[in-house]
């Protein structure tokens, strides 16, 4: 049974933060936040310089690690050792492995050891032995609802109001990860007055390319030519690579088609989300789209994408001209 964030929170509130922790996953912001919470609990600011030791990267000096593990805290109760991006749970030399395996078995009471990793290999023996003695925890991207609640909480702390719907929208237009959402939040906090509206979000937030492309497909679907070209023009201005754009258009149509096929077999929106590995918010959008496009239209749009790719790569057409022609073609069907 894998540990959850709630388990970690419980340990923090119970003040049982010594021992071994292995944190991994893509949500860096949350990871950093939890590590800082633990650090704050165990160490005081004055003696932090002596009692907090950080190792970074895959060049690990085993002697230094031994020193860190074996020396007592200086003028404090606890001591903390942080390993960042070592990669030892993915691939490590044999001597490093045996070194850490023996270390894991014998962690003193005053010591807190945290591994902050990007990726791990769950089959590795080192990981298994770490799990036995310590706590492993995966930090996944939070769900839309969790993130929206988080956003709403932050805004209310700054005496700003945001509608739940808009909060979900904000969370989805940003690049994934709380770090990037946080950056955009900061901008909004300093831009909006009293109420954060959707138009505020549209003006201030730097949208992810994926979302912009989705807006484009939506404009195509509504046959809103002016909007489609405005978006395209915007992308051209910021010098988006045409191939990236073409790929995203392709994958958007592909996903809409897949959503349509799932729905046709009486699937649900959540099944679509699971199948396409999308957040429910985005999956719902694709599903809405799929009812409005015909299957043959989607297929022809996808095939035409490949044709255009060919035309560009054989030098028959300028990239942007070809893309624009393609969009016009779609708008005129």
């Amino acid at each position, binding site marked *: 049974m894998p540990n959850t964030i709630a388990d970690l929170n419980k340990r923090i509130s119970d003040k049982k933060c010594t021992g071994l922790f292995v944190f991994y996953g893509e949500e860096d912001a949350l990871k950093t936040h939890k590590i800082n919470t633990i650090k704050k609990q165990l160490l005081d600011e004055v003696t932090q310089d002596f009692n907090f030791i950080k190792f970074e990267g895959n060049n690990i000096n085993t002697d230094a690690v031994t020193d860190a593990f074996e020396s007592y805290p200086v003028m404090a109760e606890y001591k903390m050792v942080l390993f960042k991006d070592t990669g030892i749970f993915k691939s490590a030399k044999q001597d490093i492995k045996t070194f850490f395996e023996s270390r894991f078995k014998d962690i003193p009471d005053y010591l807190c050891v945290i591994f902050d990793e990007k990726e791990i290999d769950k089959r590795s023996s080192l990981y298994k032995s770490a799990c036995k003695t310590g706590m492993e925890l995966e930090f996944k991207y939070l769900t839309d609802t969790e993130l929206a609640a988080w956003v709403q909480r932050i805004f209310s702390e700054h005496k700003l109001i945001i509608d739940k719907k808009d909060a979900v929208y904000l969370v989805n237009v940003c690049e994934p990860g709380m770090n990037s959402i946080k*950056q955009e939040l900061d901008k909004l906090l*300093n*831009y909006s007055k009293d109420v954060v509206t959707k138009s505020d979000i549209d003006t201030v937030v*730097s949208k992810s390319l994926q979302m912009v492309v989705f807006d484009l497909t939506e404009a195509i679907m509504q046959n809103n030519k002016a909007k489609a070209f*405005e978006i395209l023009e915007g992308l051209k201005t910021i010098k988006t690579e045409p191939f990236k754009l073409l790929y995203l258009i392709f994958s958007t149509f592909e996903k809409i088609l897949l959503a349509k096929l799932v729905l046709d077999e009486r699937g649900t929106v959540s099944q679509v989300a699971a199948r396409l590995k999308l957040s429910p918010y985005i999956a719902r959008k694709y599903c809405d789209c799929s009812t409005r496009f015909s299957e043959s239209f989607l297929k022809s749009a996808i095939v035409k994408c490949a044709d255009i790719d060919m035309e560009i790569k054989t*030098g028959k057409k300028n990239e942007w001209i070809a893309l*624009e*022609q393609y969009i*016009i073609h779609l708008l005129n069907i």
Partner: protein
Amino acid sequence: MAYQAIYRKWRPMVFDDVVGQTHVTRTLKNQIMNHKTAHAYLFCGTRGTGKTTAAKIFSRAVNCTNSKDGNPCNECDVCKGILDGSVLDVTEIDAASNNGVDDIRQIRDEVVYSASVAKYKIYIIDEVHMLSAGAFNALLKTLEEPPEHVIFILATTEVHKLPQTILSRCQRFDFKRIKVSDIVVRMKEIAYGDGFDVTDDALNMIATLADGSMRDGLSILERCLLASQDKLTADEVSQIMGGVNDDTLYKTVQAVIDSDTKTLININDSLFAAGSDMNSFINSLIKYCRDLMVCKVAPDIELDYNSDFVIKLKRQSEKISIEKISNMINVLSSAVSTAKWAPNVKIVYELALIKLTRTEFDVSYDALLDRVSTLEQQIKDGVTVKVEKNESVAETSKQPEAERAEEKPEKNFSVTKPFKKGELTADNVIVKAAKSWAKILGALETVPGGVPVYAQIFRKKITIDAEGIVILFEENEQTSKQIVSLPMNLNNIKKAVKRVTGNALEVKAVFEKDVDDIIDFNAIASDNESANESAETAPVKTDSVKTDSVKPDPAASAVDTVPAGEGTDAQEAADAYEDAPLPDVDDYDIREDDFDDGIDPLDNVIARAAQITEIEE
């Protein structure tokens, strides 16, 4: 003070002067007022949208001891020091020229020291996308957790070149293209401030040329101001900036719409003669087509032309179908790619342009679509039949009668060859030979093997053409004509002709109905005066051949002069001619009938549509 370019002289000093980026300036100002600045910023946007300016203002505002509403005061010691460069806490780095790892390491070593005078140490790294991969990695560490007294501002035009790791560590601000109206307002302020007199039209035109970039706009303004005398007008701007180009494109497309190949070739030639780069011309033509296409599907979208031209463009877009534009783009694009390898670029482009006006030569899918859509349009609007033929008839009737009479024989060059003007005199060897036809026939009897052919032709009418003698047959005399036409028999006749006249002349056997203008050689006067007269009025013709022309009459051949009233009068001949129906008019009637039925174009469309569905399937 030395002369300073307008865009430098008028670089905004406070956030409120930055045009068209309120979403950025408002946020930054609030951050400064609330003391909640981020540790790394990323400013991205196209050139001339205010990235560096905003970074410079920010560097002062955040350090200003006396800042008002988040704007720098520009008067306190720190502001002044930053402005004149005496305060070293603000460092501007051009990443384009300092793109190595060492340059970044230097920053890394410096950041540990706190600011000397100001509150924050600020690094403005311009064109940050130019950093090398190693430099980016070196920067990463510093960017992630910089000391509290350091702020990084990265500015770039090409944000997609930055690694994701950098992007996620910065607060990103997107600078938008500046609207034309915003540029105009700012330029007005500047023109007023510097005491220049510029009309609103001129400002509008410059603002559209600026393409969303304030710096471009101001540079253009400066160029125009330097070139103009006192008041800067829109006309002057277009003269200085060479607005002719758009007009050429307009004309080119118009020629394609009108299927006017000649104009197209002329445009192409004149451009080539003027030494223009044909590649860039065709590329801008493609761009123009794209604008037409955009204009057609989304008329509300803003295009980078001045307002007058946009109206022209819109009007033109109404006249052309989307299929035609699409076909144009395809043909031109493939011409551009062919031209890369072609030794003579001009010919490639000329061919492409001709292809556009003559879509019937092109069997590609797009060309067919284009043609079908043209036909659809024609069915919808009706067809204007050009009555060019009628005009030409009217023109010919205005010409002197004699000239027309001369033009006539050219019609039948296939059977007989007409005489040139002035050739047809009594002194002409052919005329002489024809007059002595009876003698020739006599001679033919004596030529070996000449008797059988003599039997076929001795009662036949003859006439002449520029090459020699023409023997005329009735329609029912198919067999005799065939016999005479045998090379052997024709040779025998030629021998006889040579024996009598001493000249080698051509002999032809033709049906009488195939010859329109049977020349009455007997009517050609032998004395000089009448010869001149007939030469002036060109070949003498008769409308009824059978009566007047030309029986081999021994008596006639003996007499050189022509009997009076035999139609030598030019006026008479011309009159007779006018009575005859004009074949041109006939043609025209037939054409009109065709269109009256309306069947032809419709059938075409159906056939083509069927063809296209086949292709699609």
